[in-house]
C-alpha cells in the first residue's frame, strides 16, 4: 500500500528455487518408466498364466487319451504308439507316460521317463478317488516337471493307473527370455528416456535461457535494447512482450529523469555563475560598503532562485512517485480563486491589465494545491500579456462537486505546435521568454501534476488570440465528510491519498 517502503528485491534465494529442467526430467522419466513397467508386467503375467493353462489342458488330454486306448485296445500297438510316439524329439512340450496295473506294477513307460520323472516322484491318490492333483516340481536334473497320477476306470476289466509328466523346460525358457528382454529394455530405455526428456526440456527452455541472456545484457547504457521474441514459443513470447513494454516505460522514465537532471543543472548554472562571478569581481579590488552590500544582496536573490527551483523540482518529483499527501476537503472554489486574484490584482493593475473572475462551484480539493494551480495560470496570464489586456477566470459547476475553471488571457498565446511541449519541464517558448527572464519553465508542468493528483485534466483551448487554459476537477468518488475528521481510512480512488491515509488527516495548520 505504501510504495515509499523499501520494496522486496524479489530475487528468491538460490536454495529455494528448483530447476525446471530437473523437475521435468524426474517427472517425465518416472511417468514413462511406470507406464512401461506396468505394461510389460501385464504382458508377462498374462503370458505365464496362458502357458500354465495350456500345459494343464495338455496334461489332461494325455490322461484322457491313455484311458480311451486302454478301455478299447488293451495293451496293444496303439498304447505303445501313444506312450512312445515315433517323433518325440520334435515335440515342443515333451510328455512322458507311465501305465500301471492295479497293483502298481508297470505296464508301459515312455523311454527316458525313469530318468526324467521316476515313479517315486508321483503320488497316486487313494483308491476309489479317481483324479489326482496336478503338481509341479523339479527333477534331479533341475528340469521343471508338471505331472499327475490318475486311477483309470477301465470298465469290467478292472482298474489301472497312469502317471503323466510334461517337460516345461522350453516353456519356462520363453518366460525367462521374456523377462530378460523386458529388463534389458527397461535398463536401456531409462537412460534413453532421460536423454530424450533432457532434449525436450532443453529445447523448451531455450527461449528462457536466451531471454535471461538478453535481459542480463540490458543496462542503463543500452536501455533501448529489446527482447526479440518472434521465434520464441507463445508462452515465453508473451512474457517477453510484457517485459518489453516494461522496458519502454523504464526507458521513458529514465530519459525523462536524465533530461530533468541535465535541465536542472543547466538552470542551476546561471545563478551559480552570477554568484561566483560577482563575488570574485568584488574581491578583486577594495570595494565600498555599498558596493559589497549590492553583491551580497544579488547573491541572496540568486540564492532565492535556486531555493525555489529546488522546491519546485522536489514538488514534481514527490508528486510523481505518489509521496505528496493530498489534503482534500469540500469548499467553495470561488473563495480560493478570490484569494488568488486578491494577491495578483495590484500587479495586474500596475501593468494595466484587467484581472477579473466570475462564477461559483463547490469542489473537493487540496486548497493549497488548488490555489497554486490557479495562481500559476493567473501569473502566466499577467506576465505574458500587454498593457490594456485582460485576464479572466471563469468557474463553472459541471457536476456534483465537479468543476471547470477557465483562465483566459489576451496575451501572446501559445502556438499550436508548442501546445504539448509547454507541459514539459523547463520548456519555455523562445519568442516570449524575454517577458519573464527568470522563469523556470515549471509552471505548467506543476499545474498538470496538481491536476493529475486530483484525477483531473488540464487543456489548452482553441485558437488565439491569447491563451485559454481549462482545468477540469472531477467529482471526488468519496463523500466529502470522509475528507475531514473521519477515522475511516480514505478510500478515494486516488493514488496519493490512498497511500497516505494517515497524512491526509494530519492537521498541519497549527504551526505554519
Amino acid at each position, binding site marked *: 500500500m505504501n510504495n515509499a517502503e523499501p520494496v522486496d528485491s524479489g530475487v528468491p534465494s538460490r536454495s529455494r528455487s528448483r530447476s525446471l529442467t530437473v523437475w521435468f526430467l524426474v517427472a517425465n522419466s518416472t511417468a514413462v518408466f511406470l507406464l512401461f513397467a506396468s505394461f510389460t508386467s501385464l504382458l508377462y503375467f498374462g503370458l505365464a498364466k496362458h502357458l500354465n493353462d495350456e500345459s494343464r489342458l495338455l496334461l489332461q488330454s494325455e490322461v484322457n487319451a491313455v484311458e480311451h486306448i486302454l478301455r478299447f485296445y488293451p495293451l496293444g500297438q496303439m498304447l505303445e504308439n501313444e506312450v512312445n510316439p515315433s517323433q518325440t524329439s520334435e515335440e515342443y512340450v515333451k510328455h512322458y507316460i507311465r501305465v500301471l496295473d492295479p497293483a502298481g506294477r508297470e505296464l508301459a513307460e515312455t523311454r527316458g521317463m525313469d530318468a526324467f520323472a521316476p515313479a517315486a516322484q508321483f503320488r497316486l491318490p487313494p483308491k476309489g478317488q479317481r483324479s489326482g492333483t496336478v503338481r509341479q516340481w523339479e527333477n534331479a536334473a533341475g528340469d521343471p516337471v508338471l505331472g499327475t497320477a490318475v486311477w483309470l476306470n477301465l470298465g469290467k476289466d478292472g482298474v489301472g493307473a497312469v502317471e503323466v509328466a510334461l517337460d516345461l523346460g522350453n516353456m519356462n525358457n520363453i518366460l525367462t527370455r521374456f523377462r530378460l528382454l523386458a529388463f534389458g529394455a527397461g535398463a536401456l530405455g531409462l537412460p534413453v528416456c532421460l536423454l530424450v526428456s533432457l532434449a525436450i526440456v532443453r529445447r523448451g527452455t531455450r527461449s528462457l535461457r536466451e531471454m535471461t541472456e538478453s535481459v542480463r545484457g540490458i543496462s542503463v547504457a543500452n536501455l533501448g535494447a529489446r527482447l526479440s521474441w518472434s521465434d520464441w514459443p507463445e508462452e515465453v513470447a508473451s512474457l517477453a512482450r510484457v517485459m518489453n513494454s516494461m522496458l519502454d516505460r523504464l526507458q521513458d522514465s529514465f530519459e525523462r529523469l536524465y533530461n530533468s537532471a541535465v535541465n536542472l543543472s543547466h538552470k542551476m548554472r546561471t545563478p551559480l555563475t552570477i554568484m561566483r562571478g560577482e563575488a570574485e569581481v568584488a574581491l578583486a579590488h577594495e570595494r565600498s560598503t555599498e558596493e559589497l552590500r549590492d553583491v551580497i544582496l544579488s547573491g541572496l536573490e540568486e540564492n532565492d532562485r535556486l531555493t525555489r527551483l529546488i522546491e519546485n523540482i*522536489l514538488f514534481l518529483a514527490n508528486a510523481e512517485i505518489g509521496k505528496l499527501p493530498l489534503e482534500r476537503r469540500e469548499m467553495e472554489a470561488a473563495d480560493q480563486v478570490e*484569494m488568488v486574484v486578491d*494577491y495578483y490584482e*495590484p*500587479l495586474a493593475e500596475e501593468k494595466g491589465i484587467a484581472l477579473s473572475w466570475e462564477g461559483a462551484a463547490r469542489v473537493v480539493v487540496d486548497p493549497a494545491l488548488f*490555489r497554486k494551480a490557479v495562481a500559476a495560470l493567473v501569473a502566466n496570464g499577467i506576465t505574458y500579456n500587454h498593457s490594456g489586456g485582460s485576464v479572466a477566470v471563469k468557474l463553472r459547476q459541471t457536476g456534483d462537486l465537479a468543476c471547470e475553471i477557465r483562465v483566459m488571457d489576451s496575451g501572446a498565446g501559445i502556438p499550436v505546435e508548442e501546445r504539448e511541449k509547454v507541459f514539459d519541464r523547463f520548456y519555455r517558448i523562445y519568442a516570449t521568454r524575454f517577458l519573464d527572464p527568470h522563469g523556470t519553465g515549471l509552471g505548467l508542468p506543476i499545474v498538470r501534476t496538481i491536476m493529475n493528483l486530483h484525477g483531473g485534466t488540464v487543456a489548452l483551448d482553441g485558437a488565439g488570440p491569447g491563451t485559454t487554459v481549462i482545468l477540469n476537477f472531477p467529482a471526488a468518488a468519496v463523500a466529502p465528510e470522509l475528507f475531514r475528521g473521519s477515522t475511516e481510512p480514505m478510500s478515494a480512488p486516488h493514488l496519493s491519498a490512498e497511500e497516505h491515509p494517515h497524512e491526509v488527516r494530519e492537521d498541519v495548520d497549527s504551526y505554519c
Partner: protein
Amino acid sequence: MLILIVEDEVKTAAFIKKGLSEYGILSDVAYDGEEGLQRALTGKYDFLILDILLPNRDGWSIISELRRRRIDVPVIMLTALDAVPSRVRGLESGVDDYMVKPFAFSELYARIQTISRRGPTLKQEVLRVADLELDLEGRRATRAGKRLDLTPKEFALLTLLVRRSGEVIPRTRIVERIWDMDVDSNANILDVHMRRLRAKVDDPFEVKLIHTVRGVGYVLEERQE
C-alpha cells in the same frame, strides 16, 4: 538568552551563531551529538537548535533523552528539504518547530522569538507604534489621529508588521501569513502590495515607519535619523 546550537556543519553553525549575536543573543556550538546532549543536560540553555544528522548521536535521540529526563527546553529542529518526516510535521517528538534547509536566518530568528514568547500573553486590543494606532477590535487604523482607509488585506498586513514591530519579517512569511500563498513568481508582487500600503500609511507623513530590508523582507519601526 543562551542558545545551544548542535550542528556538525561548521559554516552553518557559525552563521547561526554570528546571526544570533547580532541580536544580542549568546550561543554555544556543539559539533557532535554526544557533546550536544551532555551540554544540554546541564540545563543552562534557554533554547536548542538541533540538526538531525549528527555524528555519535542523532537529533532524535538527543530530544528523547532530554524529554525522558524532563528537561523541557524549547527545540527547533533543522531538517533537509526533501525529508520532513511526519514525526517532525506532527511535532510529536517533543520538537517545538522545524526549519527546512536551506532556510533564511531571519526566518529562524522569527521562530525563536515566537516560541520564546509562547505562554500567557496579554491580548492587546490596541497596538501602538509612534503615532500609528491599530484598534484590533474595531478594525480601525489611525495615524496622528487621522483615520487610514485600508482594505481588509491591508489591515491584516499592517497588523502583522505592527505586532512584530522592530523585527524583520521575511517576504515569504508575509505572503504565507496574509495570502496563504505558496509564492512561485519572480514578479515581486509583495512589493506592489507594500507600495500600496505605504501610500496610505507613510506617504502623507513626515516620519516613515515601514522599511524595506533588501533581500530579506520588511520591518515596521520608528527610526531616529
